[in-house]
C-alpha cells in the first residue's frame, strides 16, 4: 500500500531551469513532510522539510509548496544546476509511532549543462 505517491519517476532539465517534483498523500495523520536527496553511492540526506500549518518553505534555491486541502506537496528547484542531479524522495511522517516515515517512489533528476 503506497501511501505517498510521487511523480514524475524521472526528470530531465536544462541548467538554469526549474525542476518540479510532486507528491500526494492520503493519510491525514501525517504531520511532517521532508524531502531527501540521494547522490549515487550515498544514503539519502535531508534536504528540506515542511509542517502542514505552513503553505510554503524556501531554503536557497529549494522551495516546498504545501496544499493541505488537496493533500499534495511539491519540491521546486530554481536555477537547477548539474550538481543537483540526484534522486529525490518525498516522505511523510506519522504522528505515531515515533519518527516513522513513509517514502514516495523517488524521482531521478538529471540537469544537463
Amino acid at each position: 500500500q503506497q501511501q505517498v505517491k510521487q511523480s514524475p519517476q524521472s526528470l530531465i532539465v536544462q541548467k538554469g531551469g526549474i525542476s518540479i517534483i510532486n507528491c500526494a498523500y492520503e493519510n491525514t495523520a501525517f504531520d511532517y513532510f521532508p524531502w531527501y536527496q540521494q547522490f549515487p553511492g550515498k544514503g539519502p540526506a535531508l534536504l528540506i522539510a515542511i509542517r502542514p500549518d505552513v503553505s510554503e518553505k524556501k531554503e536557497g534555491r529549494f522551495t516546498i509548496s504545501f496544499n493541505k486541502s488537496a493533500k499534495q506537496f511539491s519540491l521546486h528547484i530554481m536555477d537547477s544546476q548539474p550538481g543537483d542531479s540526484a534522486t529525490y524522495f518525498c516522505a511523510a511522517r506519522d504522528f505515531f509511532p515515533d519518527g516513522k516515515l513513509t517514502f514516495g517512489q523517488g524521482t531521478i533528476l538529471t540537469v544537463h549543462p
Partner: protein
Amino acid sequence: DVKVTQSSRYLVKRTGEKVFLECVQDMDHENMFWYRQDPGLGLRLIYFSYDVKMKEKGDIPEGYSVSREKKERFSLILESASTNQTSMYLCASSPAGRGTQYFGPGTRLTVL
C-alpha cells in the same frame, strides 16, 4: 559529525544462506530503522527499533528479522536469503521525539 556506518557496501550471497547486515551509529540516537530501496518503489520500511531490545515491524517484514542488543547497533538478518531479497539496504537513525533520520551509505545485496 553525524555518522551511520554499515558493515558492507556490497555483498553477494547464495540462496538459502543466512545473511547479517550490521549498522552502527555514533550519535546516541534512540531510534534505528532498516529500509530496502528498489527502483520505482522508493524506500520501504522493514523493521524499526525505539530502544535496546525493542523492535517493531515495518511495512515489509516478511523474510527478515532484527536484533538490537546495544543502543548503537542494529542488525538485519535474512534467515534464508532468496533472490527476491536482492536489493539496496539502508539503515537510518534518529533521536527520540521524531527527529530527522540520518542514513548510512547502504549495502547492495545480491542473492544468487
